[in-house]
């Protein structure tokens, strides 16, 4: 059994708690959070030991691994503490607010031979995985442009935000919440941009943070990219992310449910004919052992446990890939200030 502890029992923390607790090879040995109403409910109702202090939890519960889902500004210190205690770390995205810190974490993890993973769950969605495969295999020919967009409704009226997500100093805002997912997905499907050409951050309802992000990227050999993220768009019931890859032989438009390939006349690839073809999540998603809110949330934690058990060597979306994402986020933040 792998002994797992959690730090942070908010929205993502509780979600990870339920999924990891259902894993047949995992025992949850402790939960650390500052909110008394949550920790006492967890202790009394679920019989899991709770803590206010992570150091104490490592000492008493001796976990093999920790899942950290806390406000973004706390990621570095908490992850560093865990790695130095010899504990494998799964950290919610984004990795750190300063990419230099991500680099330090990456080095400590490598030195101590610890599994390190960041919660970029889109990399575990079948449609996006298939898009990456198709792009790499040259399905649409030479790529000349990639677009990533994410919309949803998190902030839909002025001055209602009361959590860390609405405070810049704690790493709140659409850039570190929505846009980082898009950047990471674009990095995964194509590659990391060489440069952020321009960026704009817009506050729609919020006072202290941006609600929308617009940015353009340069890649090697004149390839361009464009990103748009907006968490104040009520036309979307929940977060919706779309990636479009343009190549000289066609294009691929992908969201969570559907992958649509267009091949220009005369081009074919594998079983794909020219014109439009749709592939659906129903045929592309690998099954998981326990489903709660999307296969990707289970699959990423399954991989974390596989990494710890030595079954999987390379962990997708680790501190190194997440640091690359942090660098782009930092450039967008700097340019976006104007």
């Amino acid at each position, binding site marked *: 059994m792998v002994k797992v502890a959690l730090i942070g029992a*908010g*929205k993502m923390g*509780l*979600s990870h*708690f*339920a*999924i990891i*607790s*259902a894993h047949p090879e995992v025992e949850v040995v402790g939960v650390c959070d500052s*909110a*008394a*109403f*949550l920790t*006492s*409910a967890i202790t*009394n*109702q*679920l019989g899991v030991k709770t803590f206010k202090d992570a150091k104490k939890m490592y000492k008493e519960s001796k976990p093999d691994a920790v899942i950290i889902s806390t406000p973004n500004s706390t990621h570095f210190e908490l992850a560093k503490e865990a790695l130095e205690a010899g504990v494998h770390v799964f950290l919610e995205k984004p990795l750190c607010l300063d990419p230099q810190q991500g680099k330090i974490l990456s080095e400590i993890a490598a030195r101590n031979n610890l599994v390190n993973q960041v919660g970029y769950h889109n990399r575990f969605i079948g449609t996006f995985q298939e898009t990456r495969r198709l792009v790499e295999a040259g399905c649409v020919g030479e790529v000349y442009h990639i677009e990533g967009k994410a919309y949803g*409704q*998190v*902030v*839909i009226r002025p001055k*209602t*935000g*009361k*959590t860390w*997500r609405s405070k810049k100093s704690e790493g709140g805002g659409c850039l570190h919440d929505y846009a980082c997912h898009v950047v990471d997905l674009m990095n995964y499907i194509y590659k990391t941009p060489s440069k952020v050409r321009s960026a704009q951050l817009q506050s729609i309802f919020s006072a202290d943070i941006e609600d929308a992000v617009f940015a353009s990227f340069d890649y090697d050999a004149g390839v361009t990219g464009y990103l748009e993220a907006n968490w104040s768009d009520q036309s979307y*019931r*929940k977060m*919706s992310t779309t990636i479009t890859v343009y190549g000289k032989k066609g294009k691929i438009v992908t*969201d969570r*449910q*559907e992958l649509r390939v267009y091949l220009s006349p005369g081009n074919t690839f594998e079983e794909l004919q020219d014109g439009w073809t749709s592939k*659906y*999540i*129903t*045929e592309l*998603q690998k*099954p*998981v*052992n*326990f*489903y*709660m*809110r999307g*296969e990707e949330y289970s699959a990423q934690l399954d991989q974390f446990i596989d990494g710890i058990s030595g079954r999987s060597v390379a962990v997708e979306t680790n501190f190194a890939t997440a640091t690359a994402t942090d660098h782009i986020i930092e450039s967008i933040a700097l340019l976006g200030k104007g």
Partner: protein
Amino acid sequence: MGLQRILFGDNQFFGVNHMSEDKARAQSMRFRDTESIMKVLDNAYDAGIKVFMCTTYDRVGDIADIVKSNPDRYPDFEFYPCMPYAHKYANSVGEVGILETLKRFSPSGVLGTMLTGAMSVVTQDVNKMLRLLVDAEMKRFEGVKTPVIFLQNVITDFILGLKGYQFLVEFHRYVQEKYNAEAGFITMNLPLLIKVLTENGIENPIVCANINKIGFRMCGGVEAYKEVIAKNNARVVAMSVLASGAIPPREALEWVCGLEGLDSIVFGASSKGNIVQTKQLIDEFWGL
């Protein structure tokens, strides 16, 4: 009354399609107003499907009002509410946090008082909080028949994952006591859920899960599902039998109707033709 065999679902009305955002958008435009939803429900009712299994969206209250005020038109109309409408809570948690969300959606500020005034009350009695949330969700169904009340899969599976099984037991007990209804549990982990419910003293539970020929969102796999359904120690409702359209209707229904031990099927459709055709196919395969 008992669990009915053919149930009408609601995904098509509320912009939910697991395969295509475009289809979902088109549907949400078509069903902008309650009247257009009611026309489809009329078609289903007249085709002999008397149960509307629906998420507790605010708009469902308008439908309940119509059914309530027309008892001659809808003498046998039953609702199977599925609670909660989770996105409402999830979006709110992202915006204002867990504590504020509980206050925001609690009935008449009772919970707000509890949470701010006496924190210990909440922590000692999570069950009481759950009962208040059930009551809040059930408010819009006052005066209509709700013989089965379902817990949505994201909540069932959340509790299943946390191993907080006492909450499933309490939900089962409370809807019986307060609403004279049977509890139903929607899940994506059917074999695990049936095992947990029966081990915790809920005999022959009503459960609902994705059950389709291609195994889409069936944790444990098709064979494990077939086996557990055939055991006949739970009343099983199949949903997503067409896997959002990935399987042709006749093939999908023939397969699912052929499963030994399956009790009910819930399906959604928008056109009268599709409703009637699906109903006829199920009748044919089940010999109804």
